[in-house]
């Protein structure tokens, strides 16, 4: 965690930062003449993986505010989005009807990325002080609670025969995920707006997560 803190100090302003940290600030490798060209692939992968995992942790515990904004990446959102789209998509093997009603993989994928893009564009247009990809990164990582609730719902769907009680339980689980996701994204992004327009920026995020949680709640086998 010591190395993480050092790296977060590099970009002091809120602008995005894709540079690999310089040798002096790279903590886990002890030897000073170690270069990213020579390091084992394992270290390279683990460093990025640790950054992604630490972001997931931040979303699940959204108390420390700005750490996530400074170094954005889109690995987490991509992972979450593909996972959710894979689970949510209509499975044609089980159901031969032409229109069984569920969304396709591409539709979920588009809703997530276009939705995040439009919400971000909206906050930029209202005068928000945040870069485009930072915002997409935060919105994408904040899908974590919803992805977790989708997995819970899927397990319930597989294990139990569906009754009214389990339907109700699935709705409650996805609502919890929705509230958590909205709370986390407001915690991370709320301060980047002029105070008079805060509600105008929060509302689209609310709508974005609400639509996705609707997809989660109404997903059936």
């Amino acid at each position: 965690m010591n190395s993480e803190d050092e790296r977060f100090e590099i970009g002091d302003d809120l602008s995005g930062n894709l540079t690999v940290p310089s040798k002096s600030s790279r903590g886990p490798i002890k030897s000073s003449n170690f270069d990213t060209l020579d390091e084992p692939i394992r270290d390279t992968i683990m460093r990025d993986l640790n950054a992604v995992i630490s972001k997931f942790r931040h979303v699940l515990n959204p108390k420390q505010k700005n750490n996530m904004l400074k170094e954005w990446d889109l690995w987490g959102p991509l992972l979450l989005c593909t996972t959710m789209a894979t689970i949510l998509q209509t499975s044609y093997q089980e159901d031969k009807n032409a229109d069984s009603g569920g969304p396709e993989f591409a539709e979920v994928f588009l809703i997530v990325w276009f939705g995040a893009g439009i919400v971000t564009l909206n906050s930029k247009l209202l005068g928000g002080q945040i870069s485009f990809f930072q915002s997409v990164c935060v919105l994408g990582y904040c899908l974590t609670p919803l992805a977790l609730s989708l997995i819970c719902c899927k397990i319930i769907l597989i294990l139990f025969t569906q009754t009214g009680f389990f339907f109700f339980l699935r709705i409650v689980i996805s609502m919890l995920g929705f509230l958590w996701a909205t709370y986390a994204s407001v915690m991370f992004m709320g301060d980047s707006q002029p105070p008079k327009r805060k509600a105008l920026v929060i509302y689209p995020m609310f709508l974005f997560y609400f639509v996705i949680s609707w997809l989660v709640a109404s997903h059936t086998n």
Partner: protein
Amino acid sequence: MSSAADDLLGFKDFDDIAVSQPKKVIQDESPSSSPKLSMFQIEYYQQFFNIDTNDVVERVINSMIPKRASASYLKTKLEVNPDLYGPFWVTTTLIFTIAISGNLANFFQHDHSSKFHWHYNFHLVSYASTCIILYTSLMPFLIWSVLKYSVDLNDDTNPDLESAPYIPSLLSLICLYGYSLAVYIPVSVLWTIPLLILQWLLVLTAAFLSGSVLINVLMPSLKLSKYSIFLIVGIASAHFVLAAGFMLYFFHVPSTAASVVVNIPSPIISVNATG
């Protein structure tokens, strides 16, 4: 403002705003911005989103309650600072509310004791978005072009007078129409209650409330046209048909639910009949 030809989309008006009301334009992003902005800069589009929470709430309420807005509302408020925030998010919200509560209505009316498994229909989103987006873009364009075609403005009238005749810009009409759909958002949640009489009552109430706001606000401009009576009837009936269409297509389930249930076993029956 005297020549009507070059205020297509009202861009000219925006230049005026930037000069006459600099305090309302966002200055944080670029303090030294020139009034002429390129179409490819984000600052150019920020002028359409130059609005605060209070204004949005005010405009949404004005769109639902008749007589709350003054007759010169369009000219003094919307024309001065038309925003696209409200129309965009009102229509987006309406699309998803209709799709979600249409599914809910279907779920409530579904016979849960039957073998047929209930599926939600994600594709209601596409149908809802197509018709709502068409309505909010085509109707303003039609009204604007009819007014352009039929109203002959005299150049000698003083354009600064509040009562002076004028044609609303296309952008302010889109703004007005976008907000006018706000009343259907709570209504579409209430439409899930499967009582036919209540559903029709909601259609009438909602169409009357926001339709009368539309006509009341547009009246000063409509009166100038020689087709004013057709325009008024057209606006009111289009608004009513939209509401009735929403209700019948997305919420009036009994007939469609019955057809779905009938459709499923039909292949088996036909196989039995032939075999």
